[in-house]
């Protein structure tokens, strides 16, 4: 990898990453219908969001619960700008820049005030700030649309009605939706590669050193508060970018799609399933989790009907589609038990 000197390492892992990225790259041509494309776009956005969280958790060893807040800042920035200033590229740019500024300043403040203290205290501060922000966002309805959020239009080029090619490759129409998907996809690819480069830089190694042994890092002359704060700011900026891409894709921003604590939990699950401190884990974790989230229920529906038809209602009860979270939970526990270093860690160890 010329870009970062940080290849996935391991044949199996490389194959898996190539497979996922290729599937995402050709998603509009492979998959028909809006739901599969929506799943693909969600995987892209979460891959970036989880990767930016991995810089904190996996590289710098910082536990933060405020990551959805930065995700939300990006999403709301774009939403408010497109809603208030009209659907233009300038609005997106203004919204994104404003969001990055807010996210950066907030991250800087949280970092400088609380990173000199213990991990647990920092985690609590981020939890409090994120909760306050979520409440604030739902209260300021004149600005954010409150609980309902904001629905807005994107620039003409990105609207579903825009048709670039009626009959493209494989007979697929290339419309505004396709273009939006590729904006999200390439945005994520670019930002992900940038993150890979940052963690593989001398600075990235210092973050790892601080995670490993803060005391020794200080004795070498590294100021751990400054480094940790920089990591939090970087994580926040990339999360805000992920939020902005998410808003452009959904053409909607509301508390449930950005700020809710359940998204924070999803991020944690994805980073753990994929493998902490690897960045590539974010791609794998997001792909596995989002696919499970979207298709496990349907799969269980099929199983439910089949087993019911076979005359085993008691057994079928386990596969009732309403119980899909139970199975997701079991999958999570099993994956943590069998792959404590995540899927990426496991695959790397296999091919060492």
């Amino acid at each position: 990898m010329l870009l970062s000197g940080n290849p996935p390492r391991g044949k199996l892992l490389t194959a898996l990453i190539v497979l996922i990225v290729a599937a995402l790259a050709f998603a509009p041509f492979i998959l028909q219908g809006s739901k599969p494309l929506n799943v693909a776009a969600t995987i892209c956005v979460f891959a970036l969001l989880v990767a930016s969280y991995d810089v904190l958790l996996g590289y710098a060893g910082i536990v933060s619960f405020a990551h959805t807040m930065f995700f939300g800042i990006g999403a709301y920035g774009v939403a408010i700008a497109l809603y208030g200033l009209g659907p233009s590229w300038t609005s997106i740019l203004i919204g994104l820049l404003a969001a990055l500024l807010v996210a950066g300043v907030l991250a800087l403040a949280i970092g400088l005030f609380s990173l000199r203290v213990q991990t647990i205290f920092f985690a609590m501060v981020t939890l409090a700030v994120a909760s306050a922000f979520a409440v604030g966002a739902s209260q300021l309805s004149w600005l954010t649309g409150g609980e309902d959020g904001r629905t807005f239009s994107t620039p003409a080029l990105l609207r579903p009605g825009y048709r670039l090619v009626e009959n493209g490759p494989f007979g697929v129409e290339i419309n505004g939706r396709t273009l939006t998907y590729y904006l999200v996809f390439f945005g994520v690819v670019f930002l992900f590669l940038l993150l890979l480069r940052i963690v593989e830089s001398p600075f990235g190694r210092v973050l790892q050193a601080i995670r490993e042994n803060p005391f020794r890092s200080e004795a070498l002359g590294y100021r751990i508060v400054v480094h940790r704060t920089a990591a939090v700011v970087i994580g926040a900026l990339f999360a805000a970018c992920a939020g902005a891409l998410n808003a452009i894709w959904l053409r909607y921003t509301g508390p449930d799609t950005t700020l809710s604590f359940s998204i924070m939990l999803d991020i944690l699950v994805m980073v753990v399933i994929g493998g902490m401190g690897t960045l590539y884990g974010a791609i794998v974790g997001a792909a596995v989790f989002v696919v499970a989230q979207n298709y496990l229920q349907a799969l269980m529906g099929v199983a439910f009907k089949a087993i019911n038809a076979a005359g085993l209602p008691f057994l079928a009860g386990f596969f009732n589609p309403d119980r899909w979270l139970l199975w997701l939970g079991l999958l999570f526990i099993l994956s943590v038990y069998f792959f404590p270093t995540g899927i990426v860690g496991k695959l790397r160890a296999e091919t060492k």
Partner: protein
Amino acid sequence: MSVSLETRDLTIRFGGHVAVDRVSCVFRPGELTAIVGPNGAGKTTYFNLISGQLRASAGQVLLDGVDITPESAPLRARRGLGRAFQLTNLFPNLTVAENVRLAVQAARGVHYDMLRPWALRRDLIQRADEILGEVALESKRAHSAAVLSHGDQRKLEVALMIALEPRVFMFDEPTAGMSVDEAPIVLDLIARLKKDASKIIMLVEHKMDVVRSLADRIIVLTNGACVADGDPATVIASPVVQEAYLGIAPKEKAAS
């Protein structure tokens, strides 16, 4: 530029216990000072006060005539105070080479370079490899620090110190727990550092033969206070050392 280091009435209290009690000392470039004393005498605490891991209750640390007492450990490290630790203190899940490179990076002031891949910094990598050669660890460069033998971890600790290129070297029992054939590698390294007359070297050491062979000067700490300070022969022979450090009262010695 040669360096000067001084402590003036340096004191730290933990509650009612005075761990380091008004220690005043001037350390001179080109001189290897051994700090000896019984367990719990405050040797490591004295080191921690100088390198900034602990803050003094009273007194001052002066480096090049500047009062650095209020400064944090990283700032003192950047001024040239290099500290190696008694209990092995490494980056366990990073490789041996990465451990040393982090110290080289610190010495070169590369703290926030985040847009260039690490692998392109050939200068840092080469310097780290040179140092690994000096401590005879080059064959283990790709091992993670956690899996090294105790002796190799001690060598790595010394390698980090050399890589940091400080002006004041502070070794805290560098050969503790090392085997008889490993210890000389570390001691030779320290002896080689001594040849550079612009550096201050300080050494906390228990083994008297090591102290005799390396030290130009010995300071004895007992209950946190400095009870003797002078050239090795005089200090070792002095009654206060015989009693306080070696635990042999002059009377008993006379009786035997």
